[in-house]
């Protein structure tokens, strides 16, 4: 999305499109120049970049909006910092106080005196005081880092952003697509839109989107929401959209118009996903980051499913799956602003789900309570936090789920190994059994697979370990022994060598000079 005034449109009959950028020729040259321009301004103040922008815009003539739009997108990939040793707000305070005492500052002498006096108090030279007075203003910030995109992808992204900006004016949108609509429906719900869906014999969806008050007037109120839905449409296989745009008489569009776009439109191919990764709140972001560290095989998924709780729908923020493609075993919903009544309603839904065997944990921010009432008698489905959500209650529930999963999967493991290889990596064996490695490990450790031994993360059957031992020389360079082991399918040599009674002698830190000796004392 871009500021509305950066959009120019073209009208043909009742159909309106943005004035697109080409992915080649002059526009590509412009994009390349701009990426290079921003890169060249790393370490320089924003004002310098703005001055360049003004110059380029003037040179661009009527295409100045392209220049400004591309720079707007590049700006989102740039990081600016305050370049002053002392906090500029403190400098201002000191200067203005001094000026009030010595002023009014109407001539250069008083001004110099004030700057010198303030400089003494701050431990800065008068010139530094003068130069840093507003170092924290937008235009005085210094470009510290910039992540340069591919210029062609930048142009495609720009075109997509133009399409979104045009949708700000949309009163209604029709979508046609065939598959993978989960993410789309989540976006529709999240942005408060309403939909009417039909599906024809060939499985093609037609979806009409607008909002609650669209019943009463053709309102642009939902335009921004409709624009925000667009990125989630990009993953719905081939799609087409047709939007109804409200009149804009002041822009020479006195009547309603339509805007159509389809997934195969060449000028949006390769667009960067600018908004897909964002979180609804910083809290969610912090939680996702922390939860990434939970032990395998748990995989954290964002908004993983739509859950039906009675006649309403719950879309939890997160879900934990048992392995990449495994079943979802726990859902987590982070509750921001709440009242006890709100929490009660939410809890009722959670309990309906729990009865269906879908455990949901509500993480409730204590600090964001909307009333002073406390929540009486904390139920098991609720964990309070303040600031950053604690992982502890999540980890506790996951541990319970892990036990359940291991037990459940363990039942599928027969006493006779279902693989032929004398030596096989644990995770490959687990994959063949269609269980998680942790489950198989537990089964072996509990001795439920007679004749199978686990060393490190490698499984040995029958006499495989003794045969391996016989094939190894009593002493040799670590490199050579590792090679022998690798040939036989042992990935991590250290634990196997140690199991076979070898000691590794290191000469310095270089593994190529290390030597392994059987039976020698440590």
């Amino acid at each position, binding site marked *: 999305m871009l500021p509305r005034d950066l959009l120019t449109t073209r009208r043909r009959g009742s159909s309106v499109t943005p004035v697109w950028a080409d992915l080649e020729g002059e526009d590509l040259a412009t994009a390349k120049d701009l990426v290079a321009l921003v890169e060249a301004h790393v370490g320089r103040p924003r004002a310098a970049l703005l001055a360049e922008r003004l110059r380029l815009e003037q040179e661009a003539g009527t295409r100045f909006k392209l220049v400004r739009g591309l720079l707007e997108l590049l700006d989102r990939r740039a990081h600016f910092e305050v370049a002053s040793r002392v906090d500029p707000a403190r400098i201002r305070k000191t200067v203005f106080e001094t000026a009030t005492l010595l002023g*009014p500052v109407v*001539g250069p002498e008083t001004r110099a005196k*004030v700057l010198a006096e303030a400089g003494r108090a701050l431990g800065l030279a008068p010139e530094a005081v003068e130069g840093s007075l507003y170092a924290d203003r937008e235009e005085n910030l210094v470009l510290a880092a910039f992540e340069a995109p591919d210029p062609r992808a930048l142009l495609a992204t720009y075109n997509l952003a133009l399409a979104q900006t045009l949708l700000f004016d949309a009163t209604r949108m029709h979508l046609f697509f065939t598959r993978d609509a989960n993410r789309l429906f989540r976006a529709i719900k999240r942005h408060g839109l309403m939909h009417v869906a039909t599906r024809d014999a060939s499985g093609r969806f037609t979806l009409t989107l607008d909002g609650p008050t669209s019943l009463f007037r053709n309102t642009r109120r939902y335009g921004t929401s409709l624009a925000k839905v667009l990125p989630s449409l990009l993953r719905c296989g081939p799609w087409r959209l047709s939007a109804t745009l409200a009149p804009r008489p002041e822009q020479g569009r006195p009547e309603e118009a339509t805007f159509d776009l389809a997934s195969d439109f060449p000028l949006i191919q390769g667009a960067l996903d600018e908004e897909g990764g964002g979180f609804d709140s910083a809290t969610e972001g912090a939680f996702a980051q922390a939860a990434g560290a939970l032990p395998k095989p748990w995989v954290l998924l964002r908004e993983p499913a739509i859950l039906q709780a009675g006649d309403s729908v719950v879309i939890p923020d997160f879900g934990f799956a048992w392995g990449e493609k495994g079943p979802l075993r726990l859902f987590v919903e982070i509750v921001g602003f709440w009242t006890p009544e709100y929490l009660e309603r939410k809890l009722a839904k959670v309990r309906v789900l729990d009865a269906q065997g879908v455990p949901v944990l509500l993480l409730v921010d204590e600090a964001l309570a909307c009333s002073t009432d406390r929540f009486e008698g904390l139920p098991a489905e609720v964990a309070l936090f303040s600031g950053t959500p604690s992982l502890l209650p999540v980890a506790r529930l996951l541990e319970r789920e892990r036990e359940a999963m291991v037990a459940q999967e363990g039942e599928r493991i027969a006493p006779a190994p279902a693989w032929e290889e004398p030596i096989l990596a644990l995770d490959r064996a687990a994959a063949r059994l269609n269980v998680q490695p942790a489950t198989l490990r537990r089964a072996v450790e509990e001795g439920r697979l007679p004749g199978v031994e686990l060393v490190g993360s490698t499984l040995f059957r029958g006499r495989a370990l003794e045969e391996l031992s016989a094939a190894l020389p009593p002493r040799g360079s670590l490199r050579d022994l590792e090679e022998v082991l690798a040939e036989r399918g042992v990935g991590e040599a250290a634990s196997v060598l140690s199991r076979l009674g070898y000691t590794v002698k290191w000469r310095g830190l270089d593994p190529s000079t290390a030597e392994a000796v059987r039976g020698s004392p440590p």
Partner: protein
Amino acid sequence: MRVAYDRGTLVVRGAELPQALRGADWLRWDPRSRFHRAEGYRYRALRERLEAADVEAEDEVLDLIPAEEETLAAPGLTLRSYQEEALAAWEEGGRAGIIVLPTGAGKTVVAIKAIESLSTATLVVVPTLDLLEQWRARLREAFQVPVGAIARGETLLHGITVTTYDSAYLQAERLGNRFELVVFDEVHHLPSEGYRQIAQLFASPYRLGLTATLERPDGFHELLPDLVGPKVYEATPAALAGDHLSPYTAETIFTDLTPEERRRYEDEHGRFQRFVERHGGRFRGVEGHKRLIMASGRDPDARAALLARERARDVMMNSEAKLRLLGELLLRHREDRVLVFTEHNRLVYAISERFLLPALTHQTGDGEREELLARFRAGKYRVLVTSKVLNEGVDVPEANVGIILSGSGTRREFVQRLGRILRKQEGKHAYLYELVSRDTREVHTSERRAPEKPKAKRGGRA
């Protein structure tokens, strides 16, 4: 029959629509969800119809934020006679209407008394973040309860909550059934195409609008009776001057451009002028200017003309003579509390850096803004340079001198700027200066404003 709130609308469920609601043209069958639906602000009419016909209905529309206190009391506040009259008129009008009082006449106090009389979940909607903080402070002080705030993506809900028009617009669906009373401060903002949706999406049956100037140049104030209620009370500045407000002197001072500035001004303005003349009347006047901005997206000549006009404006507004005169005025009023107004941030910061004066703009951070105003009130700073931020309502009753360096020439802005330094204070005499570059477009701006001014001594250079 059941009535509930759904994202800015009312939904009426039930096998059959009762007789009492038939014929209500604001109630419609929604084929998408298969029940009847009305816009949120029809709640009062809906309830009145049901009550009149004595229809029993499950009403789940309001989900009010629980109040901190059973009844709210503001014992420390007493109303002046005209404030009493205003409040009584609002109550007689069914607690849905607009009160027009000049800036400085104590609109906030009237609102506090209105909140006290209803003692219910209340949302106050204000135009700016400064006003938000100011209202919160006043409400906390009056009722001795925590006061919520919704702004800049942060939400803190309490029985009394203050928000901005922008946040209320963005969150109307979520908040529309949580408050029984909504107070619209500076209600003339409400009818704009976006903000009017706040009024339409909220179900709140009680509404109070406050303003000093009801009329809008676009005529949209005619929508206000539907959105809030009719005007129930009005007092003009003239009616209150001398009684409750300080006397003031207004003076327009003309300055000359330097020869170099004059040359640059004529050069740039001429370029713009020639473009306008070449196209006949198409780009003349306020409407013409909008057309010019539109055209500049396509036509390089139009864009060049627009840029030339901006440069000409920069020359006249930043004129050296004007800045020198500002210095003189600062010297003349070195013992006074002075507010310097300009329309553009760039000039605010140029003045701040040249005269080493504290600046207050939209860019000023919250903490610094608070500190700055506190220091100004306490006299640690005697002068404040500002852009539009102070237009509406930031309380600086200590100020007694206003200097306008550039003006947009609309009536409302002038009244509000003036009001700022007219706050009642014992024995205060207020001065207002307007600095205008001679023989430039600014002169027209100033003249456009003049007939609207209240009675005042006017003259040349003092």
